[in-house]
């Protein structure tokens, strides 16, 4: 059994950490690229959303490297993603790529259900070892997020554009390679230390933007056309509504690890959207309110084209914009999206915010 799974940003490090801790064989698909997308677009239904297309490309590329079993999250509720594992399996089967599929439905009921499904994968490993593996890989997720938040802080401030991302890439590799808590701690500590040495400009007027929207487009830089890097170049410090470790904690570990960082988005969304609309629609609204209360200068919503939960959120955001008095830009991505169009919109949006701030300063004087 050689396992594989589709990419979603840095998630491969966490899942690989988990599976390797259990001595299982893993093939990581090549990073999502134009080739991956072309494969997906060729074989996926045109009106499916972008995650399905890229998943499919990832799985084809992984099959070519010898993987024979897919682990994938499933889901219940209005978002189409819940069906993607099954649909992808069918498409792959028709193309002659035979795979076993193990679908992990989100265990939003209790942890035991999650463990039961895991049992199929872990084979002879003891439960104790599985729990250790989960803990260890969760620590990897936390380490990645710690480093990533630092990177998000530094991107708009670095003197030479690109320095931070070179270091970031390297640190991710060392976290990926860490096999024990000690080497993980060392990788994280050294990584943060390296990032702290990056020369920065001090007297900049940094714009703070909250990135909200659908999980896959938020976490996968290939899909969001590296929006965070582009914003960094425009002098923007980005904070997302969603970080990998927080998501794992709240959705897979049932808030096993109590963390104060997690915002009460359900409460915050209540005046605007008092219903679970699927995907991350409610989070999008909740975090929009939360970020505006924290004094962010603007919000950018990002989602795959035709994403139903985010369309619902999109139609509610004008109300949030009005009442919380915060500029909001919505960006949909699909295989036709071009970087030039994205950069134009981002530039205009940041211009808008800078001009408003200048105006406020002028009035204050």
């Amino acid at each position, binding site marked *: 059994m050689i396992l594989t799974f589709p990419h979603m940003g840095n998630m491969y490090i966490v899942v690989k950490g988990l599976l390797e801790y259990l001595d299982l064989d893993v093939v990581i698909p090549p990073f999502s*690229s*134009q*080739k991956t997308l072309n494969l997906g677009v060729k074989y996926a239904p045109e009106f499916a959303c972008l995650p399905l297309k890229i998943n499919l490309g990832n799985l084809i590329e992984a099959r070519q490297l010898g993987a024979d079993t897919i682990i994938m999250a499933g889901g219940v509720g209005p978002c189409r993603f819940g069906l993607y594992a099954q649909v992808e399996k069918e498409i792959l089967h028709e193309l002659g790529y035979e795979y076993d599929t193990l679908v992990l439905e989100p265990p939003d009921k209790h942890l035991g259900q999650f463990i039961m499904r895991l049992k199929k994968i872990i084979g002879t490993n003891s439960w104790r070892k599985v729990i250790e593996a989960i803990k260890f890989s969760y620590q990897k997720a936390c380490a990645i997020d710690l480093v990533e938040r630092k990177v998000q802080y530094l991107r708009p401030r670095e003197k030479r554009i690109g320095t931070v991302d070179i270091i970031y890439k390297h640190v991710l590799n060392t976290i990926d390679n860490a096999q024990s808590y000690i080497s993980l701690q060392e990788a994280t500590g050294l990584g943060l230390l390296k990032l702290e040495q990056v020369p920065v400009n001090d007297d900049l007027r940094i714009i703070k933007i909250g990135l909200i929207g659908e999980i896959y487009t938020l976490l996968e830089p290939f899909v969001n056309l590296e929006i965070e890097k582009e914003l960094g170049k425009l002098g923007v410090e980005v904070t997302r509504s969603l970080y990998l470790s927080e998501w794992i904690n709240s959705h897979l570990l049932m808030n096993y690890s109590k963390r104060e960082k997690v915002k009460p988005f359900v409460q915050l969304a209540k005046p605007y959207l008092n219903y679970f609309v699927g995907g991350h629609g409610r989070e999008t609204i909740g975090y929009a309110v939360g970020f505006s209360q924290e004094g962010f200068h603007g919000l950018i919503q990002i989602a795959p084209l035709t994403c139903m939960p985010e369309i619902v959120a999109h139609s509610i955001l004008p109300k949030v914009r009005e009442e919380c008095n915060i500029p909001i830009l919505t960006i949909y991505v699909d295989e036709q999206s071009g970087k030039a169009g994205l950069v134009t919109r981002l530039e205009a949006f940041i211009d808008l915010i800078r001009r*408003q701030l200048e105006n406020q300063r002028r009035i204050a004087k």
Partner: protein
Amino acid sequence: MNVFLGIDVGSVSTNIVLIDETHNVKQALYLRTLGRPIETLQNGLLKLYTLIPRETKVKGVGTTGSGRKLAALIVGADVVKNEITAHAVAAADQIPDVHSVLEIGGQDSKIIILENGIVSDFAMNTVCAAGTGSFLDQQAARLGLTIEEFSKLALKTKNPVRIAGRCSVFAESDMIHKQQLGHSISDIVAGLCQALVRNYLNNVGKGKDIKAPIIFQGGVAANPGIKIAFEEALGEKIIVPQWFNVMGAIGAAILAKEAVSGKNETNFKGFDLVKSDFTTLSFECQGCPNICEVIELYIDGNLKARWGDKCNKWTDAIENAG
């Protein structure tokens, strides 16, 4: 006389304007880009040079539009701005209390909402270009009319027909269908105008608070049928400014004036640049599966810029070399 040069290189047209220190338009050129932005820009500048008095001094240059970066490299710009900011700046300059700007150009359409002269919200068409200038051009050509004749046709209508405006391909089939049923061309064109306005308001204008004063600008504002359709749909008077088709370039020129204020020097290379030789070459980078198409700009045989690579390794190689 001191002037500021604004250049808007768009998909359909390349617009060049000169404004004086009080933002009066001294010269305005509206040229078809015809897929050759560099050549069009050089010809435009040459033409402009023959039109202006000798003592004219260019104090600053701004570029905008989808070809803004290329244009900036060629002329030596003091400011490079996206078209949304440029259009908003020009609109607020011409009509100081403007609230909503409807802009329809060759391939994109946008809406800009301003509060006290500052942009507060905007949207741009994302996945569909139905109802933009290119489509109207194409339909005029199909009916064997010039775009000017086509524009005026809608005014003669008595009874506009209903055209499906969601998609430009279906709009065309629907127009042909109505034509075969025997409707007059003017009724069909008027129906098309209404369909395009409906499509614009439902897509680009969705969730936006459109209030008077409303300005309509961009190349399509030359079409009185669309203007009337907007007035009917919004129940408000629509203002088409005098320089509606070069507003982006005016905005770029005003931004250039802001950018050079207080430093009294410009990056402008002078009108002699029309004699330089600009060549672009491209190659496919084989470094990873993304296979980016990298474009190189040569000025008089020297490599001056490179772009198009996702990882920036080619771009950086030049920028770091100085």
